[in-house]
């Protein structure tokens, strides 16, 4: 029998220490992409301030605020569902807290608690209608997006005569001066805003859930083959409902954060955020159809979003081009990820 001696027929196995190539991970394409995009901006805009501390904080803050919502949106997409109501939920939470504090003279704490209560209802509604009635989440959450925004505009106009609530109590000490919640959401460590730490923290939590917990295993299975998951006794309905609640909670966290930053609540806050979150998730290597992806990849996709949206200011290019560039990158990233996945599987089969 002819034996090829150049390579061992069976690779030696290290028992208990599974070999996991970096290439097996969904985020490596996103990592390369992030590096390339950052590199391009460093070269063309480096001398105009892109590389300074201020420039860096600038794009990190933009990425961080989106990134807070991207983490649960990514987990939900892996589970096979969308949430198009996160933008509306950001607006709703900001306006609710602003109204209660400014017009009704509530304390910030209870007002925030009410906003999270509303988020819980939104998440439960999206989740229950999707899971129990079998309506595609794209439609359910698009419907709730309109319902939330419509109700928000109507109520706010009736109650205050305007859709813009100003006069959130300012503190001479600045943004960070509004109690524990203010410090936690809008404080700084050195020059780095708190939102960056929330973003990193939530990304780590998402990574832990997906990689280490049984719940994470169920998320992948729910999106990868719901029938098989159900047969193995995975409660995919419960998994999805919890994820819809988490996207609504993250949107509320961002809504409150932006309210504290800007000092005003506006029904147009968060417009388009739902699509930006999906774009960042997909740029990060998560499959739109579910079953595959990672939170770190999504964070890298968000990083790219931040670098492009803020970096363009430093390049001297008219920043109105931002959305066009984002569109090109989204398409490019999807194509690259598709090729990578195909090549990987072909390589595995060929061995």
């Amino acid at each position: 029998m002819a034996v090829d001696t150049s390579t061992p027929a069976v690779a030696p196995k290290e028992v208990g220490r599974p070999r996991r190539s970096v290439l097996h991970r969904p985020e490596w394409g996103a990592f390369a992409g992030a590096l390339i995009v950052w590199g391009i901006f460093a070269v063309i805009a480096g001398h105009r301030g892109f590389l300074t501390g201020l420039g860096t904080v600038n794009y990190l803050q933009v990425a961080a605020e989106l990134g807070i919502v991207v983490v649960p949106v990514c987990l939900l997409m892996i589970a096979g569902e969308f949430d198009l109501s996160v933008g509306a939920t950001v607006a709703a939470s900001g306006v609710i807290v602003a109204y209660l504090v400014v017009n009704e003279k509530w304390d910030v704490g209870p007002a925030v608690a009410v906003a999270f209560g509303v988020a819980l209802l939104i998440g439960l509604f999206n989740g229950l209608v999707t899971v129990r009635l079998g309506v595609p989440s794209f439609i359910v959450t698009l419907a709730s997006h309109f319902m939330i925004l419509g109700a928000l505009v109507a109520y706010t106009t009736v109650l205050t005569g305007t859709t813009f609530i100003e006069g959130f109590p300012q503190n001479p000490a600045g943004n960070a001066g509004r109690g524990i919640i203010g410090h936690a959401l809008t404080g700084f460590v050195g020059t780095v805003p708190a939102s960056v730490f929330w973003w990193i923290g939530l990304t780590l939590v998402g990574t832990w859930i997906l990689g280490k917990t049984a719940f994470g295993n169920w998320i992948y299975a729910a999106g990868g083959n719901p029938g098989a998951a159900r047969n193995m006794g995975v409660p995919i309905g419960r998994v999805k409902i919890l994820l819809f609640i988490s996207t609504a909670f993250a949107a509320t966290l961002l809504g409150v954060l932006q309210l504290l930053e800007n000092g005003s609540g506006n029904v147009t806050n968060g417009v388009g955020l739902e699509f930006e979150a999906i774009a960042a998730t997909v740029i990060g290597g998560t499959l739109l159809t579910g079953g595959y992806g990672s939170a770190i990849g999504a964070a890298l996709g968000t990083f790219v979003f931040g670098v492009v949206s803020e970096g363009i200011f430093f390049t001297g290019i008219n920043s109105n081009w931002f959305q066009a560039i984002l569109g090109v990158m989204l398409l490019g990233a999807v194509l690259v990820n598709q090729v990578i996945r195909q090549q990987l599987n072909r390589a595995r089969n060929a061995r």
Partner: protein
Amino acid sequence: MRDSRETGTGVPLLEASDLSKDFAGVHALRHVSVSVGAGEVLCLLGDNGAGKSTLIKLLSGVFTPSSGKISVRGEGVRFTSPRSALDAGIATVYQDLAMVPMMPLVRNFFLGREPVKGRGIFRRIDWAAAAEIAEKELSRVTVSMRDPFQPVETLSGGERQSVAIARAVYFGASVLILDEPTSALGVREAGHVLRHIVNARAQGLGVIFISHNVAHAWLVGDRFAVLKRGTCVGTYTRDEVTREELQTLMAGGADIDELGRELEDLRRG
């Protein structure tokens, strides 16, 4: 009719008596009784629409019967979900629903029964132990496994079925229900799966093998139940029936004769 299920304790592992299932007034299954004992392969044969999948969905807890009784080791049970059937030792392997293709082997192997360590929010899957077990259990049934973390989509269809069978056996199933495990496979691949069926039988499991391929069923079956239009037209042991008789029973003797005459006429023009 000789009863070959009287193996071991004499009580069948899984028994369905007089099962019926209606869907909005349509009788999908009427008064069907089947049973399987330890170390026995029962083949459920039938054409499309004969009620095979309704029957296995009743036995695996996906549907609840409209009437009739299901017993496990002689005790009446009422499955409310696939999970409750699984917990009673009834594992079902579906053709397309056995595995999550994009997920790594080890994640699939432990899906729904992840080995965890740690407490509270630090409760996590013990991946080292899981990988070791998966590697040990699966290296025997798959040829192309190099890494327990490789996605299932890199395995062939036959290997996926074999992995699902190995998983069921590992988690202590006493009855394996296999839904058309060989239908979509080539001869060699099917042989692979049939070998695992015989192995499971030798380990004392009861196997219910659903198929419309009499040739495959004949290779592994101890008893054969033929379903037609929602009813069971007969249960036979191996020495009570021939392969050709089964084929005729399944297709419906008279029907196939008539089809033969019709086609003959067409051929002659």
